[in-house]
């Protein structure tokens, strides 16, 4: 069986036939070539695969591409506008919020959701909002700083 889906990713519309068991993360990476959305654990724990689906941050290793039919999706590739980094991207660079960078796309998408819901979070609120995202490098402090930097510069 295959399912016809139509999705808008970073403003561009795509139509494909997908196998029901194809996860959205593999559709984004393998069909659309958008490899900025990473696969860390593949078990819904690490948050590396976080993308924005209809305004909600979702771990897309745990969502079927078929479930996304009709959805508007933003991945890390869609955040910068006209060659200018998004304030969150700029802030991660500015405050050294990454080392290897593997977790960074997911961190930024989860932080995007936080700032959209709460423009002036406390440090504790930032930590709570990033509970679903693991970083194995930074020790998190610079990530918190980056999110606060972005909140201040917005």
């Amino acid at each position, binding site marked *: *069986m295959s*399912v016809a889906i139509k999705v808008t990713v970073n403003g561009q519309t795509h139509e494909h036939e997908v*196998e*029901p*068991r194809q*996860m959205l993360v593999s559709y984004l990476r393998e069909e659309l070539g958008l490899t900025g959305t990473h696969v860390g654990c*593949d*078990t*819904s*724990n690490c*948050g590396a695969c*976080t993308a924005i689906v209809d305004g*909600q*941050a*979702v*771990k897309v290793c*745990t*969502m*079927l591409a*078929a*479930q996304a*039919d009709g959805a508007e999706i933003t991945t890390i590739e869609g955040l910068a506008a006209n060659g200018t980094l998004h304030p969150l991207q700029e802030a991660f660079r500015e405050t050294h919020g990454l080392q290897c960078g593997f977790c960074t796309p997911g961190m930024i998408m*989860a932080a995007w*959701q*936080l700032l959209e819901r709460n423009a002036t979070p406390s440090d504790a609120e930032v930590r709570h*909002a990033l*509970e*679903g*995202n693991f970083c194995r490098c930074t020790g998190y402090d610079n990530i918190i700083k980056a999110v606060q930097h972005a909140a201040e510069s917005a």
Partner: protein
Amino acid sequence: MIPVAFDYHRPASVDEAIELLSDDAKLLAGGHSLLPAMKLRLSSPGALIDIGRIAELNYIREDGGTIAIGATTTHQQIASSDLVSANASALAQAASVIGDPQVRNKGTIGGSLAHADPAADYPAAILALGAEIVVRGSDGGRSIPADEFFIDLFLTALAPDEIITEVRVPAADKSAYVKFPHPASRFAVVGCAAASAGGAVKVAFTGVANAAFRDSGVEAALSGGLSEEGIAAAAARAADGQEVLADHFAGEEYRRHLAKVFARKALATIA
């Protein structure tokens, strides 16, 4: 990790979904319990019936002193609902500490209740608040009191051909949910909900036993009211006579201790 191949249906209504149900088909709501299990091939249904976008299942409304919540309402929607916070704060508090923001954006109350994980957060709140679970099947509908819903590990009173459509939560005067989260998974090692309505207090636990349960011993010991001494004496009886879970993270003794501590915390919050 890739699940075993399956067919995918996205019915437009509850009636259509019920028609599609069969021994080999499973409902898909938020997918945040089912899809991980399918990826690990612990579960391999032949078909999924995606009810995640059936509009008639997604709502929170007041209905004569009761808060009615549609089955596919997400944890995030419940955690951020003023109506739920004002009338059933234990439920809003439980929703707000499930997993992480991404999980709360996708996971649904109907899916969590049907899945009946022994460490899930909602069941304690549902029991303490005296909620009813409204279900519909090929033979019509019924309403299951929370006290009769949770039976055993991953086992509920739901029949295989039934769909949860709504959760009905009577407004409480005061209620609270507190939990000791597993440091990695965020599931409840022990979670306790307490609710008072019309002078009666109900106390329920999740994470402690195979299924969430009302603690009648604690409730009976509270007949003297919610004074500090009364709460301490009642909380000391938490999980008495109950078979208690033990795993490599928390042994039986430790879980019993946590049950007492979290009973006291929950009761102190509503005192």
